[in-house]
């Protein structure tokens, strides 16, 4: 799902600079040269005005060309238990009760969060399978995917999903093809209540804080707040929640981070590994110098001949 009109900021499993890139720090912490920095895009999901109509689920499938599937009633309004490789946008429903017993029906649009520090990209060893554009979109290029699923491990939001048939991993692209053409993502366009907003990260952050302030001042949601987790350096999908102190109610992690071992592996461990690998080669060479080539057995040498 790469798009020519978007500028790439970071590439998975890639050594050296980003083609056409400007000066900026890549997600792996290294300084790169090339691309000029454009503004960051962002989706704002206001859970307080979502009515759970799921128009965004349909728009996502239609735009991305995935088929509708047969589902089963499961004592909930939620379409499926989880997102899938070909179902990227899911409204999660939760029946909650306030302390006084007042029922509250929480609905949260679940999709890729497009982290500023994308665990998937950091974890990915395949050159160019995952890219991060300068506008913040994290996108998978299935043609480069090797199916190792390290990205699944790297994601703190359980987003990338493996397709057993194609042996590739898929997820929400933030409609990079639409955004690259100057359009809003399909989910945003389909929202009938306007609970979904799209714009620059700065603007969305401003709108979100404004809304949260309004909720705290004028409603009983005294803990309303904005979910834009620092642990992954902020996200390009942010939420207004009725209660920012209880993100778990919306099945959002309280403090998502890129898993420690993924960071270690792609950070210090990568260098330690490189050194270890160099040492191994040196040892091999030393072994060769000392013992000479391994003699090949006669039989094996003739194995291919007809008998």
């Amino acid at each position, binding site marked *: 799902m790469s798009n020519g009109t978007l500028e790439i900021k970071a590439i998975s499993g890639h050594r050296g600079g980003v083609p056409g890139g400007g000066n900026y720090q890549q997600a792996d912490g290294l300084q790169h040269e090339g691309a000029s920095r454009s503004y960051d895009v962002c989706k704002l999901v206001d859970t307080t005005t979502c009515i759970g109509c799921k128009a965004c689920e349909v728009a996502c499938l239609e735009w991305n060309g995935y088929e509708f599937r047969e*589902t089963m009633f499961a*004592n909930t309004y939620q379409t499926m238990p989880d997102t899938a490789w070909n179902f990227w946008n899911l409204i999660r429903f939760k*029946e909650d009760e306030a302390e006084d017993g007042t029922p509250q029906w929480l609905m949260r649009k679940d999709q890729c969060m497009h982290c500023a520090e994308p665990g998937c990209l950091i974890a990915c060893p395949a050159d160019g399978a995952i890219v991060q554009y300068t506008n913040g979109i994290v996108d998978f290029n299935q043609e480069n995917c090797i199916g190792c699923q390290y990205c699944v491990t790297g994601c703190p939001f359980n987003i990338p999903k493996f397709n057993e048939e194609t042996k590739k991993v898929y997820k929400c692209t933030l409609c990079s093809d639409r955004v690259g053409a100057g359009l809003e993502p399909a989910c945003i366009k389909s929202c009938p209540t306007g609970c979904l907003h799209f714009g620059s990260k700065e603007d969305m952050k401003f709108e979100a804080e404004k809304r949260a302030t309004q909720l705290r001042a004028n409603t009983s949601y005294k803990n309303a707040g904005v979910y834009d987790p620092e642990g992954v350096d902020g996200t390009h999908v942010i939420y207004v929640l009725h209660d920012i102190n209880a993100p778990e109610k919306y099945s959002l992690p309280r403090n998502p981070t890129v898993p420690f071992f993924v960071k270690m592996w792609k950070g210090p461990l990568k260098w330690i590994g490189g050194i270890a690998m160099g040492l191994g080669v040196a040892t091999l060479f030393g072994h060769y110098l000392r013992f000479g080539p391994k003699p090949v057995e006669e039989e094996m040498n003739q194995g291919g001949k007809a008998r």
Partner: protein
Amino acid sequence: MKKVGTIIYSVGWTHHSFGTQIIRTAAMAQLLLGNVGRAGGGVNALRGHSNIQGATDMAGVFDILPGYLKVPTPADADFAAYIKRITPTSAKPKEWDSFNYWSNTSKFAVSFMKAMYGDKATKENDWAFNYLPKVDRKYSWVEMWDNMYKGKVKGLLAFGMNGVAIGPNSQKNIDALKKADWLVVCDIYPEETSSFWESPGITDDQKKQIKTEVYRLPGAGFAEKDGTFVNSARWLQWKWAAVPTPGQAMLDHEILARIFLKVRELYQKEGGKFPDAILGATWAYSNPNSPSLTEVAKEINGKALADVHDDKQTPTDWKAGQQLPGFAWLRDDGTTSCGNWLYCGSWPDAGSNTQRRGTEDPSGLGIYPNWAWSWPSNRRVLYNRASCDVSGKPWDPARKQIWWNESAGKWVGNDVPDFKADSKPSDHMGPFIMQPEGLGRLFVPLAGLADGPFPEFYEPMESPTENLLHPKQSNNPVVKKYSTDMDKYAKAGDGFDIVCTSYRLTEHYHYWTKNNPMNMELVPEPFVEIPEDLAKEKGIAGGDKVKVSSVRSTYYCKAMVTKRIKPMMINGKKTYQVGIPIHWGYKGLGDGRPEEERTPINLLSPTVIDPNAYTPEFKGFLVKIEKA
């Protein structure tokens, strides 16, 4: 007077045997709060379809003609008597002047007759008044089915109306259709009504007994035709066909036109009891078999039939054949024609206003005067004179809708004044110009509503409890109970002690989307929402198959156990309520259930209607529930 509040309701408020009085209560509250005639105020209906307003404006109801002209009755001896009966006379309370706009009724009515019958309607023949049907009883929805069940109605043309699924008391409607001679259904899917002969539980033998001849006509979906939608704010918005009709499907108006022309041909050939009204109807379309909706819309707007002149208007003249710019031009001398006076101005000589898409909002009030066109006369807020004080100054200077301009000697503003433009404030004309006294009404005089001048609290016709205000008369006394063997009503204590209500889901659209894989993915199966306590009592777990039964029939579905519906304490008794989304039936995509369990929800609902608007009582009846 700076704060304004609106009441927005959806049709659930009308689904009661006292629905009209609920809406009246809302209107009274808004009048008392000063929320009428003001931007951001009013009582606003959210309809179940995109064009309910348009359907009502164009008389999709038996007791009105287009533009809310009352229908003639057998007592109206002639046109003059008819007009006299339906035209209110001005009443001026004390010093208040009165516009009484309905005093122009004769102009609207004669112009309507000219649109219907053209040259056949003349002053000499009483504007062909004898062509109009004289409505002698209430031909409302439920009455129609009742009469078919009684064998009096022999045939039905159903266009986009799935009468079996819509109900109420669907089995009565199914059995009524079994007694009809013929049924014509125009729809975009095979639906429950045209498939009544394969309804759940029917045996092969029973099928063989049915003699009804059924015709299915493939109509067009909304995206396949041009025309206008009229929204609840009365905007006429033109839309263009997005896709062609598939297969053998035809535009609905082409189907109607072909039926009409065929019927007219038969009348021409064979005569008949009263051919004049059919033969005399105007049908001046360039393609009679499929009239263009542009032509129809222009016909509804109306035109000058002779040169007309009016010194008080600008411009002062219109030539014969020209489209008219507004209903102030309509005449009762036969020189103008107009299909619906309220729509006059929607398609003037300059072109269609319904196709305008201007996004300017100079006042910042959200008026958008150049987006489409709203009746009447592009006035966006009705009774907007009430947005000003007695002296003609806006109550809120920061939110000015209209005001009195002393030097110009008329009302001006950001909206089109819904008022007599030159009536100076000192004349004290009342802002409610459609009432003969010009005032908003808290009291409904002259038996305007069947159940009285003031709203009253009533229980539904099927209720688990009594009305503490007046236990001897728990429910609406003027609601009619139907008397056929299919009309059963439960009483408290009959074993049906759970309150049931039905409703729609955002994921589905009526009984259509069960044919569409995308909607079926979102919500695949019918279910009933039940409180946790009730589920526990009945040993029902979420996802279990259950039977919901009323005194009339049984509905099969799965249970959704929820915290969102709580038991209620009513008159000291713990009372349960359950809720059923309406969208399923025995046609549409299969969901794995056996045929006999693919039941429509309205098998359960009673034959009970509001006495004013004739809306069925879907929002309260009695059931019991058990594991299937």
